[in-house]
């Protein structure tokens, strides 16, 4: 894999993370990070939608009439979202999580990461790099989701992936951590840590 592809794949995961640097997809990051399971399923769903939509639209990029390109993007992305939702609903293991995530699976279509990357990258690049870009952005989004969910589930319910961890040590779950504001505070802390490591992100 050449250096440019590697950069496409690795950049969104840390240096150009869609949540902490581009500040996209915040709404769902606050909503689905109560449990690790939810965050994991959301991460996989967004990654699949973002990667496959980027791939399809990159293949079609030279045939799409520019006047209706946003509409074509919407059609493809919403198709992927519906497919993901249908598949999640079909499996016994994911049915309950799909219900728990309810509207947020459908709202992946409004996740700016997906449409943003298609518009900014997939329409101007070849299919393979576009696929990797979509994949990497989904993973970068998921990484932050999992980090936030780790603290929220551990401190808010005393569990991880539903397995009791702190509860048996006599920890009383902190309900504040379950509420959306705490996700925003945790997210702020992650942005703070990242910016103190990556000095070039700091505004003068």
């Amino acid at each position, binding site marked *: 894999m050449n250096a440019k592809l590697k950069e496409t794949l690795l950049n969104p995961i840390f240096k150009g993370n869609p949540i902490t640097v581009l500040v996209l997809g915040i709404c769902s990051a606050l909503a689905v990070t109560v449990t690790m399971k939810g965050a994991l399923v959301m991460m996989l769903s967004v990654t699949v939608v973002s990667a496959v939509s980027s791939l399809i639209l990159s293949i079609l990029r030279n045939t799409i*009439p520019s006047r209706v390109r946003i509409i074509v993007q919407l059609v493809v992305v919403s*198709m992927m979202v519906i497919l993901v939702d249908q598949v999640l609903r079909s*499996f016994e293991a994911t049915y309950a999580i799909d219900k728990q995530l309810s509207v947020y699976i459908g709202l992946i279509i409004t996740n700016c990461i997906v449409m943003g990357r298609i518009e900014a990258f997939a329409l101007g690049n070849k299919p393979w790099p576009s696929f990797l870009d979509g994949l990497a952005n989904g993973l970068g989004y998921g990484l932050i989701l999992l980090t936030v969910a780790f603290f929220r589930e551990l401190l808010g319910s005393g569990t991880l992936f539903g397995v009791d961890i702190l509860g048996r040590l006599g920890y009383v779950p902190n309900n504040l951590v379950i509420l959306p504001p705490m996700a925003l505070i945790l997210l702020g802390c992650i942005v703070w840590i990242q910016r103190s490591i990556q000095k070039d992100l700091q505004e003068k």
Partner: protein
Amino acid sequence: MDTNKNLYTVVYTAVVVLIVSALLAFVSTALKDKQDANEKADIMGQIMTAAQFGTRAELQGLGNSNVLAKFDEELAESFTVNLAGEKVADLQRDKVYPAKELKAQNYKIKGAGEPELPVFIFKNGKTVVPIYGAGLWGPIWGYIAFEEDLTTIASAYFDHDSETAGLGARIKDDPDFQHEFNGEKADFAGTRIFEIVKGGAPKEADGKTSVIDNKIDAITGATMTCKGLDEAINTWLGAYKAYFGKNASTSSCCGECAQDCGKCTEGCDEAENNCGEE
């Protein structure tokens, strides 16, 4: 090729939309059976949660086939009744009503025809009936389990399609809200069968325990969802009123004067009938 011509644009979008819709229709048909099976087990889980066979999470953890087996094992009988309280037909033992079927019955209750109202009676004595109505953003529904007197609510479980997480969604997610129903009594004689009171229901002297009546506290920040739930409960329990009136077990009046009740002298423990005191 010029991709900006009108004809090209129209044909292109039409073809894309056709391909996408064909694909979605195919996938939806192919996966329908599996989704229906999941939904059925989910509804059985909701009904059994209301009938106190375990918490929602415990029942979900069982897996589909075990939920179906448990439902079949614990169910005494299930049938439909009409608005006059007469039994219409027995239901198949694994028949449950998905939300969209409840919706159809909901229209009929509100005057569009004769509804078929499902009743599920379990071997532990609980009678479970569904409710259905409109929340703030979408439908809400649930199951209420009654004790044998068909007045005391044993417990309730509610679910929703798209209520706001953290606010309206608490009718489903907040166990404290659902626990408020336990032990309350529906008032079939009054104008309102059950009330979810904004600002708080009457409390015992300790200021916390709800008085045993037909009122409970609404959820802060979920006024419209609670209004919808209140409406749904009153509409549906109103439809079941005749059935409940005819079939209420009278065993609860054994402790009082049996002759006042006039019904339950048979089958009651003599010692419990303290009629001599009057």
